[in-house]
């Protein structure tokens, strides 16, 4: 659905993904760390999409296999994953989310305006159009 929005507003909308693994999802944190490792290899969004398609299969072996399937070099990926290279940055995202008042996922903000849960396309479109009108002063 967000891809549809990005296609519809190719020069007007950007999407920023923030990590917010929930504590009660035991494997979520390592999945988020793996996605960052894939990002370091230049395959962030491909890996991101792979994780959503594969949830909740996020064992260490799964995460390494997904990387291999995307052509990511095994050794640096495994080293990144095992050393928890991006742990602190994910924690920063979590703290930012908590400060923004997030209570569950997914939570979206459209130019700062919150939209919680699996909101429909129309809800995004309304906020986007409103933001664009505010920008042009109409």
């Amino acid at each position, binding site marked *: 659905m*967000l891809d549809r*929005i*990005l296609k519809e*507003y*190719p*020069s*007007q*909308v*950007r*999407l*920023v*993904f*923030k*990590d*917010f*693994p*929930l504590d009660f*999802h035991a*494997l*979520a944190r390592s*999945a*988020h760390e793996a*996605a960052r490792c894939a*990002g*370091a290899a230049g395959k*962030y*969004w491909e890996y991101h999409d792979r*994780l*959503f398609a594969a*949830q*909740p299969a*996020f064992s260490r072996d799964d995460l390494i296999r997904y990387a291999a399937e995307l052509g990511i070099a095994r050794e640096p990926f495994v080293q990144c994953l095992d050393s928890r290279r991006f742990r602190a*940055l994910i924690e*920063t*995202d979590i703290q*930012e*989310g908590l*400060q*923004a*008042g*997030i209570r569950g*996922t*997914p*939570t*979206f*903000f*459209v*130019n*700062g*305006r*919150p939209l919680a849960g699996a909101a429909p396309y129309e809800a*995004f479109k309304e906020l*986007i159009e409103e*933001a*664009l009108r505010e*920008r042009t002063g109409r």
Partner: protein
Amino acid sequence: MTRRSWITGLWTLLALLAVGFWALLVLLPARTASQSLSITLNPVMVKGPLAAPVTIVEFSDYQ
């Protein structure tokens, strides 16, 4: 003013206070969230043009 109209007025006042309190509970967190959104940006985790006038920020969990 009769005792009955005093009681009616009191109930009306209590109902208005309850509605106001509920509205504060529901609306205030959203407003606070909107106003306090301050995030760091990792270009790797951005899709779309960096200079786009509208930014959708998604906080999500893979699992």
